[in-house]
């Protein structure tokens, strides 16, 4: 039973991280390799805000959300905007460089110490028995709930609101969207903002759940196979992909060997690429385009 809960929590984390990859990729065909750093910074935002406000979780989280969102906008307007029309590789490399820059900044501002925002929020990360033999921590629940909420909100927005519709349009055919009067910069920035926010949220919950240090960014890379298995451009594909990868990982830990769990997602990825190179829900044309 515990295994099922573990899979759900891990899958939720992957969903939360990968949401940003997909949003940015769908909008601007850029794969953001600085995603892990954005996640880490999200955690540090919460840490800083928590120290500043002290024992006020609601305000702290809200403020940290705003910071994360703003960071996404800043990254777009001050950096990625200039990469329009450059080759995919160059854009990706810019995000890599951005990652290095952010990592340096993290060390500069927050040093390499382990940090625990939870201490300053005045919250407890207690565990809850949900069914017989399965326990989940408060922030495990938070992770699952925020993932469900985020995806629900995003799906509803994409389906029923005008800006969601336009965001889809921008992702599908930016030139035509622009010719229909949509300002691309706004929607690109929005996708960066939401991406930074969602991954920052993952970082915050992760920081509350198990602490914070600059090496956390690697988790962002670990989530890669999920995006590819789901199909780079498919938000809906992330969810099953996250479950498949999380399941593979956790089954490996339990039945094969814990250290092999490191390569399990990549084994899933490779087998996926052999069967359906464009991912579970990705579009085939997508593959041709990139």
């Amino acid at each position, binding site marked *: 039973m515990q295994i099922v809960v573990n899979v759900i929590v891990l899958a939720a984390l992957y969903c939360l991280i990968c949401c940003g990859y997909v949003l940015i990729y769908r909008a601007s065909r850029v794969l953001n390799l600085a995603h892990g750093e954005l996640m880490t910074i999200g955690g540090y935002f919460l840490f800083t805000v928590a120290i500043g406000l002290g024992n006020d979780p609601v305000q702290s989280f809200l403020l940290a959300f705003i910071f994360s969102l703003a960071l996404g906008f800043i990254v777009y307007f001050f950096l990625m*905007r200039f990469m*329009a*029309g450059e080759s995919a590789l160059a854009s990706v490399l810019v995000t890599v460089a951005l990652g290095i820059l952010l990592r340096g900044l993290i060390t500069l501002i927050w040093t390499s110490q382990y940090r625990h925002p939870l201490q300053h929020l005045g919250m407890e990360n207690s565990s809850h028995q949900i069914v017989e033999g399965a326990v989940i921590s408060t922030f495990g629940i938070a992770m699952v709930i925020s993932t469900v909420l985020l995806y629900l909100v995003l799906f509803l927005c994409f389906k029923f609101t*005008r800006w969601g*519709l*336009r965001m*889809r*349009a921008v992702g*599908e*055919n*930016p*030139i*035509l*969207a*622009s*010719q*229909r*009067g*949509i*300002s*691309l910069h706004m929607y690109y920035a929005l996708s960066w903002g939401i991406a930074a926010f969602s991954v920052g949220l993952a970082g915050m919950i992760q920081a509350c759940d198990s602490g914070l240090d600059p090496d956390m960014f690697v988790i962002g890379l670990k989530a890669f196979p999920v995006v590819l298995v789901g199909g780079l451009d498919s938000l809906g594909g992330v969810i099953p992909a996250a479950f498949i990868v999380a399941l593979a990982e956790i089954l490996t830990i339990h039945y094969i060997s814990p250290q092999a769990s490191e390569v399990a997602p990549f084994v899933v990825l490779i087998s996926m690429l052999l069967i359906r190179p464009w991912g579970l829900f990705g579009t085939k044309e997508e593959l041709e385009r990139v």
Partner: protein
Amino acid sequence: MAKPKNETLLSIEKLEVVYHNVSTAVLGVSFEVRNHQIVALLGINGAGKTTTLRAISGFLGVDDAKVTEGLIQFRGEKIQNKPPHFITKKGIVLVPERDKVFENLTVEENLQVSVSLRKSRASGQDFKDLILHYFPVLGKVGNHLGGYLSGGERQMLALSTALVCGPRLLLVDELSLGLGPIIVDELMNLIKVIRDEQQVTVLLVEQNALAALEIADYGYVIENGRIVFAGDPDRLRNHEDIKEFYLGQGERESQKSYRDIKQYRRTRRWYG
């Protein structure tokens, strides 16, 4: 050259567009579009028509193209190298040659995507009525994805989404492309109707000169990035060269056959 009436809505002067910083696509095109007219821009494949239209409707960073020389003026305002959404909001809306609809969105959604210039004047419902008035077919396929429409429906949808933007000037790229003659006729007539009813000016870029000149008030012929001929439809239709090249109905006997080209111009060999 017969001067068309009305005030100038759009004027292009010595336009030059450069792709990827190296290749020049259009060399010094100059022409103008007057208010409330249908103007046809004729020319063969690769003559620079599409590039001209794209230059008017604005380039994006992703195109890696820019207007390096010349002037594009819309109602007296310079608009070259402005982003497309800016130009759309000014009232110039393009119906592109390909990728004209969002294939993964339904017809309804396609219509909702467009940002309307006349948002204050008309509600979404009005637009819907308007669209259904001109294109009743679209009402029946409202829930279909754009990608599954037939060529004609697709063209209608593209025209509709452009109309939703509330254009003053409608740029139409290759309306007839890949469509049967009947539907081309139908669409051409519709454009004329829309022009009259919606107070829209139309710039029509066509390979199918015959169809375009049927409804046009004025025509330009573009070749290799230059305007080589201009005039009203009758003049164009009756000009020998135009007949030859674009209408495919010149008297073959009178013109030089490609077989008879003097080979010594470049080499001293004769064949055939």
